């Protein structure tokens, strides 16, 4: 059964291959593609929590900010010491970046654990609010930590993010979520979503499933945050507010909860939409919000969910 691993290997090689040609891609298109990739990681990881496990989290941007800050801190404060004044070779930089992203992801995962253990006892709207509250608290804390730039944020983060890293992490997140959900263990996530009481009755520890989903989701959100920080080269606490969380939730819902392919398509569509509507920039957010309302009324199961007979209330 080594097939999924083969896919991952192929995807990583493809990412490496594409990065060879990145010089020939128009820089604007490259930026858009990187933006799409980061959003895919965020949406796919949130889909594990909101889609497959059926828990409604509104704090994804909070975990993203933890990862972004931690990764940026690693490359800003630790980088010069490890690499020396010249900045080191490309390989050294790559290893440092991998370390920074991993640190960001692990930090976010830890934050996910700390948030998840107490709050996952709650359900529905209340869980949404508590996660929203934690996201806002994380933001206010970052605004007050002088060491991390306070309200001004961190500037001058090295631009390590390249199309290779983004594609590699997209592949890794999709691989992890897909394999996890399709494994014997992972059926527990779906069971938790479908009927929590019945799952507990047959002996599943639903709380543990929720926490595992939350921690893994937070890990990838943190890694995406690290990629984002090293892509924009500057991060501010307000960039990770609750509007950002909602943006990610919307991708998951439009894609059809618990449908990885749909969520990827929705992430692509929703990242491209503001770009396409740029000529009418003034009205683009109005159109975006109107689309959201109309879609919820007309296609509540999500834009890309074609499974029949699953219109569950």
């Amino acid at each position, binding site marked *: 059964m080594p097939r999924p691993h083969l896919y991952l290997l192929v995807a990583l090689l493809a990412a490496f291959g594409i990065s060879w040609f990145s010089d020939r891609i128009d820089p604007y298109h490259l930026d858009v593609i990187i933006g799409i990739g980061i959003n895919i990681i965020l949406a796919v990881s949130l889909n594990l929590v909101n889609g497959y496990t059926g828990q409604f989290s509104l704090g994804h941007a909070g975990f993203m900010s933890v990862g972004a800050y931690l990764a940026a801190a690693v490359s800003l404060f630790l980088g010069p010491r490890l690499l020396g004044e010249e900045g080191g070779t490309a390989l050294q930089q790559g290893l440092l970046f991998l370390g920074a992203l991993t640190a960001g992801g692990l930090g976010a995962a830890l934050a996910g654990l700390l948030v998840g253990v107490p709050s996952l006892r709650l359900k529905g*709207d*209340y869980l949404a609010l508590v996660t929203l509250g934690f996201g806002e*608290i994380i933001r206010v804390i970052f605004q007050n930590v002088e060491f991390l730039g306070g309200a001004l944020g961190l500037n001058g983060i090295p631009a390590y993010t390249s199309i290779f890293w983004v594609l590699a992490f997209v592949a890794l997140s999709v691989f992890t979520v897909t394999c996890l959900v399709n494994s014997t263990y992972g059926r527990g996530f779906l069971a938790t979503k479908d009927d929590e009481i019945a799952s507990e009755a047959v002996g599943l520890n639903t709380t543990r499933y929720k926490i595992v989903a939350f921690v893994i989701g937070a890990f990838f959100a943190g890694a995406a945050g690290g990629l984002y920080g090293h892509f924009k080269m500057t991060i501010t606490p307000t960039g990770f507010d609750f509007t950002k969380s909602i943006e990610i939730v919307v991708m998951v819902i439009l894609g059809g909860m618990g449908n990885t392919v749909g969520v990827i398509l929705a992430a692509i569509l929703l990242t491209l939409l503001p770009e396409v509507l740029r000529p009418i920039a003034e009205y683009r957010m109005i159109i975006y919000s109107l689309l959201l309302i109309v879609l919820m009324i007309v296609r509540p199961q999500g834009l890309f969910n074609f499974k029949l007979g699953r219109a569950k209330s």
Partner: protein
Amino acid sequence: MSEFLQQILNGLSLGAIYALIALGYTMVYGVLRFINFAHSDVFMVGAFIGYYIGQHVPQDTIGGGLVVLFAAMLGCALLGMLIERLAYRPLRGAATLNVLITAIGVSLLLEYSGQVFFGATPRTFPSVFPSTNFAFGNLVISSNQVVVIVVTALLMVGLQLIVYRTKIGTAMRAVSLNPKAAQLVGVNNDVVISFTFGLGSALAGAGGILYAMNYPSIDPLMGVMPGLKAFVAAVLGGIGNIPGAALGGLLLGTVETFVNGSQWSTYKDAIAFAILIIILLFRPAGLLGKVSIEKV
């Protein structure tokens, strides 16, 4: 001591505004069981109605102030009913999550439309009510604070009378208790829900005017933070519970004012959420809410 009283007073006038907004959240939650994210933007629209009407009424008079207040309440009530009719009614009976997302969509729509039509730059709210300061020893009470507390108290008494003394109020409570049973005994649920939105939005409109009087810089995103905090107030008091929303608002306003006056003032936006998390973890039903047992 007088500083303590002063802080209490400031806290109560801020809390009164939170309470007004919280009432709208709690009433809508009572009948429809969902968080109306757009409520905070109705509050913003209320302030802008006040801004435009306020330029055409005599300044610094009680009469002019009341005209502005009623105009904002009426405008917001109509807006709230319109939102319910167009966005929420088609989703009656749909999954909670979809309604929640629609509410977020309506909220974004109002915010971005506001930025296009009102402009994104902050405006200065006209002084519609006369403003003076009354001094009692070291204690200073501004007339704005008096207006806030008096108007809020009157509106809450009025609301209490509507909910407990009128036919439509009885119908509201019936729908909140059990929508199907209410329908069976002849309550028109759609009318009741529409009325609830109108009532809640009118209170948000009044809250918008009162807030803008005390913090006279208004912009299309002004509703986000007060809205979130008012929701916290509603949960704190017990969501769906009208006296609870009032109590939660006053408590939250007071706590926030005290934090703002202390050395942790930069954390004042976090304090509301910390309270929310603590209350949800230890007493999810809120201070005045009834603890319900989940049946399988």
